[in-house]
């Protein structure tokens, strides 16, 4: 079980390979990668994530412990970046390893749903029109509520 909160850019594929090499006991790995999105209709030039690292580590470690209790997991990793990122750069990666694909998928979704609302990161988007804080979405609260 690993949590990493970092300003350094990470390599999604290298992280996945490291994660997969941890054990031969599990047959199923689910990975979620969140990347900075930009499209011509709605261009973003930068995404800045503010973070409270001490609380983030506590929250993410607690979240991993909950997921491990709840699902049949052999390993799980959360990597979350903060600082200023650009389109195409990975923001977050969650990886889960289980004997069963359903447990791997569910645990990854569980981690992402809680991470969206319970991890102390705040996103600020820079567009050609200026800079604004991203508002918390009620859809994220609803996604979290389904696990209760």
């Amino acid at each position: 079980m690993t949590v990493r909160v970092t300003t350094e850019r990470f390599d999604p594929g290298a992280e996945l390979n490291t994660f997969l090499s941890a054990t031969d006991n599990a047959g199923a790995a689910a990975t979620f990668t969140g990347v900075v999105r930009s499209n011509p209709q709605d261009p973003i030039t930068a995404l800045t994530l503010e973070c409270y690292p001490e609380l983030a580590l506590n929250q993410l470690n607690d979240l991993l412990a909950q997921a491990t209790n709840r699902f049949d997991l052999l390993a799980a990793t959360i990597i979350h970046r903060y600082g200023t990122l650009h389109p195409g750069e990975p923001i977050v990666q969650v990886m889960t390893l289980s004997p069963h694909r359903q447990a791997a998928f569910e645990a990854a979704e569980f981690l992402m749903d809680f991470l969206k609302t319970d991890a102390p990161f705040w996103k600020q988007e820079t567009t050609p029109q200026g800079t604004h804080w991203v508002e918390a979405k009620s859809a994220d609260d609803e996604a979290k509520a389904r696990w209760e």
Partner: protein
Amino acid sequence: MKILYFAWLRERLNRGEEEVSPPAEVSTVAELIDWLAGRDEAFALATEKRSLIKAAVDAKLVGHDASIHGASTVALFPPMTGG
């Protein structure tokens, strides 16, 4: 006691942290927010909608009814938008 501010709350207050010494009767997060609002109009305005203010005491996420007794750091911030 150190207070930390994040995101738009930090921007609106124009500071990321401050040292405060609330009186002994200020014992919960809610009471701390009231007390801070009483001494600073910018803070009062920024935290008017209390449901938009989340809190952590000594790096542990808590509700507004949580005790701040013996806390060395209280963080106040908007709803989180990670992931």
